[in-house]
């Protein structure tokens, strides 16, 4: 096993070009477990903690570019609480302070777990994932072409997730998550809701109710056309119907954490509540 402690993006990409099977290590929250228990001994590891190009964020016109190395702790604070509040809320629900200090949004994206907490927000925001390789330079992949299945993504072995691009949307955002504990809980079901007050649209992202994070197009279309955007209200029963449409968009399974039926129900309730909060 070799370890490349990359201190620049070029170093990291060169290392990946040399060994596309190399394991990337950012927060370590998934990977170190397998190494410690000798389940896996990859030939090489590229560590990303010191790559400055992956840290921080910037504005590109109306787009917010978040470096892949941004930690959940950074994302749950200002300015993100104002600019992408749904993402800040989602980051706050991840694990513990220890995990939020180490774990990164890039790791959440690259791992591609259906329970990844930031993913429902990213898909509701129509995020674009930025990949880079030494061979091809930068490649931008929309979220719906990036997440292919449980922990399967469109990232090639020689590529690095360097950033994620999300539009700055004017309007309320919510992330609601159901779990059996009050903290330190893997999502049983998660719902992100993004209101665009300019475009008069509502977008919904769902986590833990499908092999990949999902959207709920019928529910979105219903909300877009049913909300009175002048008064920011919805007719009686509208929020409930919205919730029912979100439930219908889910395709959950039974596992030891919950049942498909509960998950389908829960995303509907969370969606209804999220909409009511955004309209309150």
């Amino acid at each position, binding site marked *: 096993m070799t370890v490349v402690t990359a201190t620049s993006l070029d170093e990291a990409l060169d290392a990946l070009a040399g060994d596309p099977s190399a394991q990337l290590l950012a927060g370590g929250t998934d990977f170190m477990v397998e190494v410690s228990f000798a389940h896996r001994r990859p030939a090489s590891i590229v560590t990303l903690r010191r790559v400055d190009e992956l840290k921080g964020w910037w504005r590109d016109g109306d787009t917010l570019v978040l470096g892949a190395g941004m930690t959940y702790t950074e994302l749950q604070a200002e300015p993100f609480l104002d600019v992408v509040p749904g993402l800040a809320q989602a980051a706050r629900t991840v694990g513990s302070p220890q995990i939020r200090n180490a774990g990164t949004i890039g790791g959440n994206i690259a791992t591609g777990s259906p329970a990844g907490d930031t993913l429902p927000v990213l898909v509701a925001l129509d995020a674009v994932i930025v990949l880079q390789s030494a061979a091809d330079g930068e490649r931008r992949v929309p979220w719906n072409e990036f997440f292919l299945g449980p922990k399967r993504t469109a990232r090639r072995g020689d590529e690095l997730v360097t950033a994620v691009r999300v539009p700055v949307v004017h309007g309320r955002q919510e992330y609601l998550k159901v779990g059996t504990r009050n903290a330190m809980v893997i999502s049983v079901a998660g719902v992100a809701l993004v209101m665009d007050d300019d475009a008069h649209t509502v977008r919904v992202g769902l986590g833990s109710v499908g092999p990949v994070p999902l959207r709920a197009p019928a529910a979105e279309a219903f909300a877009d056309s049913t909300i009175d955007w002048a008064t920011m209200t919805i007719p009686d029963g509208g929020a409930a119907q919205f919730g029912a449409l979100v439930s219908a968009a889910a395709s959950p399974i039974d596992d030891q954490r919950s049942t498909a*039926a509960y998950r389908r129900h829960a995303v509907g*309730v969370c969606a209804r509540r999220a909409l009511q909060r955004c309209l309150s």
Partner: protein
Amino acid sequence: MSGERARRIEGALKVTGRAEYAGEVRPDGMLHAALVQAEITCGDVVGIDDSAARHTPGFVDQVSYDDARSLAPSTATALIREPVVHFPGQPVGLTAADTLLAARTAAARVRVDYVERPSVAAIDQALDEAYAPAMAGRIIGASHRGDPAVALTGAHLVVRNRYQTAVNNHHPMEPHVVVCWWEGEQVVVHTSTQAVYGTRAIIAHALAMPADDVRVVCRYLGGGFGCKGQLWWPWMLWTLTASKRTGRPIRLELTRAQMFTLVGRRQETVQDLAVGFDATGRLVAIEHDVLAQTSTHGEYCDTTAEVSRRLYACPNVRTLHRLVRTNEPQPIPMRAPGTAPGTFALESALDEAAEQLGIDPVELRVRNFADHDHDADVPWSSNSLLQCYQVAADRFGWAQRPASATVVDGRWRIGWGMATTCYPAHRQPCRVRVRLQPDGTIVVQCGTQDMGSGTYTVLAQMVADALGVPLSQVTVELGDTLLPEGPFSGGSQVTASMFPAARQATDALRAQLAELGMGHDETLADAVQRIAPDGIEAEGAATANADIDVRCMSFGAIFTEVGVDADLAEIRVRRVTAAFATGRVLNPLLTESQHIGGLIGGIGMTLLEQTVTDRSSGRIIGDNLADYLVPVHADMPEFDIALIDEDDTYLPGGVKGVGMLGTAGIQAAIANAIHHATGTRVRHLPIRIEDLLHELPATTPGALPSMSE
């Protein structure tokens, strides 16, 4: 008459990280060990090939069945002498290497050949082979008084239901560990154990050594809750074997995943319970049939139905424990063994009866208070349960209990529930040595160990009180078989066992000093300098009374308020008020903390904790702390703990056990509160949010045919 709220005397070592736990002993040249674990569910090991493992850099040795044949046959050596796989993950060998990674890598490279046999991976797969064990814990497995069948027929109300509880694992934060080395024919064993003397006995027997040649040390124990006992002895003995052969110290430390399979578990139960009442709410009959899992290599049965025999006054009671052997890990006691699952059934049934009879749940229990132990027909040494109900109900505000499912706080439906808890008060033989040092300070020695409950501190308090010296003058030494033999840490017995021995020792010390001419006005320090300049010591030895003519138990009453999300059914315990009567309280600070810790453990059992096995292979699904959920800080409700001091003149020092009480009763209190909040009665643990949504299919913990005989 409560004792002092003394701070933990070993606390400074623990908050700074200077307390040395067994795994932190670091002899020179120490090797690390790892276990080779069976990948089949049931069968025979027919070949072990470690040639690939031996090529692992850093590899030193591998031991397996052949290397344990010379050990004396016993339950502690059966699994390492006989090449039979009883459950998935059972160790079939142990590797030793220079580093932990090398040992783990080598273990993964050991090639094992098996002949597999058909397995039973869940109790409902072998119901026709259920059998009634002679004993459930320390009680007879079956009981019968009066004629419950006839009484149930004539009862005004019969509540008859099945209650089920899941497998739980103890998960003390410290994993099991042993660090051992040989000094000639003697062996030194540092290990995380609830019984240094018990461990010494088993090693001496297995290796056919004089007990004095075995030294077992456990100065600080990172929790136990029942699992730091016998079940892991086989793997410890393999470690000792490897250490002897290599001539090197070796450490074996279990992984968190192994803590699900190799150290015991709370057994799952299926309980068929019928309780019959007359029109005034008096119990006329109880039938309590318990079915539980045990392994194919060992027998263990919790005392689950014991509460039905004696908690309440009832003339007609029949109880029965039955077991089914499966190819799953072996159960052992876990905090509040028996009373945790048993009170869940009985105290849920009483709540159901109270509702149907239109009697307040507290009043129903008061009406059925047992003024003596009806099972053995002997008096209680003391029983302050009625006072517990009253104090806890008052502090909780129970009189204002609203009608069911009527209180809402935002999105939360609020419910109140209560239940009774109890636990037997036992003692063990114990010896304590007290030494008065030349400088006037006191050293107290006892070969028990402090599981974290506060044994160091209460023993110091006992001796300081008896000798009239400040606590700061007393040093306590525990956790070493070089010290006088003390009790194992289990069953809430240590404090009660130490008390008479410590008192004897301090009395004997005073008598010696008096004989030597200690003056009445003289301090201990002055006296020792004048008449015993080398210091002086005395020992006390107490035997355990069989308590034949009297029944000793601790009791308590637990009241809870829960909130259930109206739409999502998320369940939150909002507050817990409890009153516990545990004899004389030696240290309220430690006692309250024990109760709160016990209650949180019970909340975990009620709402979160479940060890899930694959029904075809018996393998644990999610053998980690991300999937096996235990309560976190954010789950902590508001606690209000009342300590009811009792003057129990029968028990030495009036001391009863504390640690178990909070972990029983709370389950039913929560289930009853959930029913109050939602109208839904859940009769299995853990109660999951999925269970409370009527429009959804409920989770079914395995459909079993009727077990009535």
